[in-house]
């Protein structure tokens, strides 16, 4: 619609994403005393609880448990925070949906990127924790950005879909927190798939979050290269989700204004 070149449009997307992520970030911690420490506080508190529960109350016998669970918490929190913000992208932003020249489809990207900032802020802490628990941090750490990239694509694909679905079914907004909470327990965030009985194993392995969290653990804690075929499969599924999600989102965006 805008008679600008593809390049300018790309530049515009970049500026929209950058400025709105900064807006969310600045606004979130504006009046707090400790500012962005809050973005680390929540995963750390969960870490403490899980550490107490599963080494002192029920011993799961997982070595380097603090790092193990912290990786899971951070990766899961990224998805959870991003999706909960993205779900109301269309239904909660009537002003922006009506705004000519505004790339509405950038909003889910902003949600995923905002939540990713929290992950990044906590990342040094995670590495310190890994080092303190005796992981030998090696060159496999170079794979962390790759795993992050794949997770980004995966979350974004789902973000487009839930935002689009929420136009027709506002229930999605209500159901999503519940589903995410349930998912938390069906993903090896604080336990290990090794403990899952053989016949349920395929269910866990089909979960892309399992593959992603395992990959983080491999490259950060164990100095192993990730299981490339599994990661590749997740990337392929995520890319397909993203493509489908993006088009569904655009469709829903136009429909949103048409329902009386």
């Amino acid at each position, binding site marked *: 619609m*805008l*008679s600008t070149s593809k390049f300018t449009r790309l530049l515009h997307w970049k500026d929209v994403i950058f400025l709105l992520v900064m807006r969310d970030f600045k606004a979130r911690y504006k009046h707090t005393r400790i500012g962005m420490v809050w973005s680390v506080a929540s995963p750390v508190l969960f870490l403490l609880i899980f550490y107490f529960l599963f080494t002192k109350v029920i011993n799961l016998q997982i070595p380097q448990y603090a790092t193990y669970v912290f990786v899971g918490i951070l990766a899961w929190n990224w998805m959870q925070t991003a999706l909960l913000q993205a779900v109301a992208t269309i239904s909660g932003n009537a*002003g*922006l949906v*009506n705004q*000519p020249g*505004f790339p509405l489809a950038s909003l889910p990207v902003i949600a995923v990127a905002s939540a990713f900032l929290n992950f990044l802020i906590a990342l040094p802490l995670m590495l310190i924790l890994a080092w303190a628990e005796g992981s030998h941090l090696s060159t496999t750490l170079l794979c962390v950005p790759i795993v992050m990239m794949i997770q980004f694509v995966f979350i974004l694909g789902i973000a487009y879909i839930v935002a689009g679905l929420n136009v027709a079914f506002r229930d999605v907004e209500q*159901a999503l927190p519940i589903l995410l909470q349930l998912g938390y327990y069906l993903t090896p965030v604080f336990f290990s798939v090794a403990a899952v009985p053989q016949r349920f194993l395929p269910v866990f392995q089909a979960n892309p979050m399992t593959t992603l969290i395992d990959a983080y653990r491999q490259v950060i804690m164990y100095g192993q290269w990730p299981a490339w075929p599994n990661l590749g499969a997740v990337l392929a599924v995520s890319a397909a989700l993203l493509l489908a999600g993006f088009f569904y989102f655009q469709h829903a965006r136009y429909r949103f204004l048409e*329902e009386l």
Partner: protein
Amino acid sequence: MAGSVIVQQVSKRFTRYERERPHTMKERMIQGFRPTRILGHTLALQDVTVEAKAGRMLGIVGQNGSGKSTLLRIVGGVMKPDVGSVTTTGRLSGLLELNTGMHPELTGRENILIGGVVAGLTRQQVLKRFDEIVAFSELEKFIDSPVRTYSTGMKMRLGFAVAINTEPDVLLIDEVLSVGDMAFQAKCLDRIRRVRDNGCAVILITHDLVQVEKLCQEALWLDGGRVVAHGTPTVLVGQYRSEMARKTREVTPPDVPEAVASSGRTLRINENRFGSLELQISEVRTESPPGINVEEITSGAPLRVRFAYKGKSSLVPVISISIGRADGTQLLDVNTRADGVVVPQTGAGQTVQIDLDRIDLAPGDYFVNVGLFQPGWEHAYDYHWAAYPLRIIDERHPPGALSPPRKWAVYDNVGGVQDGVRAQSERNG
């Protein structure tokens, strides 16, 4: 800058649902899980063809629900037509909802950047126009304070300054001009005129018919999604006004008993009283000085008009007061919408009062007319016309319409002002 919009045979259909769709799980539980049924479809636009040309302003008038906003959305690209096409050349910008995307906790400076990119500019483009935006908003002193500390008027100025300074080739305006203080409004209108004269194609949606006459070179009248008329603003606005008057007669209930106005005149429906009577005006008083009901004042005296109304409690009318002659000439015509006055819901009833500091009209016989109108000016709720006489007296009887306070001076060409006063007459109403 030379933009244009060509709308060709555009139609748009909306789906109507059985009732307000349940939006939460709780509502859905209460209503049961049966799916919401589709009642039918509404044709929001039918075969609309219109063109907005560079350097011209197109005014769109029509009642609420006539398809004006839908047309604007389709032109803006946020909605797609079912049939037909829209071709836009140039950069498009909208003055639709101000301050979208802005955050109250951030400063004016930060919000200008956000508002700018939301309106379609890159960060670089906003920075280039930054000083101009700040200057236009007149918020230099507050630009580093959080927007939360701004007054409503200041927020509006910020939003408007960003939107108008995007240097669009096509500008869409939806009713935003009816808010804000008069001085800033005039400045905005002036800016819009300049943008237009620089080759921008402007499309304006408004309920203010005077604005259409004054600003637009072309006008389009929509009703029920169809084009009723398309042409010169003065002609079209005239047609639109007479159609409104006809609608008012249509909604006027039959068999309304005659009522006696506070002036002692009889109010007869469709004669000196018009409207649906969903709201009813009573106890109209013309006071000068305040507190004393009069039908005669000297030119230059103050006038207070006061009346009560009640009726359907949910209605929020536009209140209009005018002074005119029996032949229909209006000498003063003001209303709460144009003056930016907030009118509350009618509730159990309201009293209206307007103080006019001076009535500097030439002597003669006038009427004070009072009216309550549907917010879209679609019809009158109650309009008393030529029921409250006002005679203006002035011992000097000048002809013409006005008799403002005046000072005369006739000077000698040679002597200048100081010593050359030969004749002077002064009058202060």
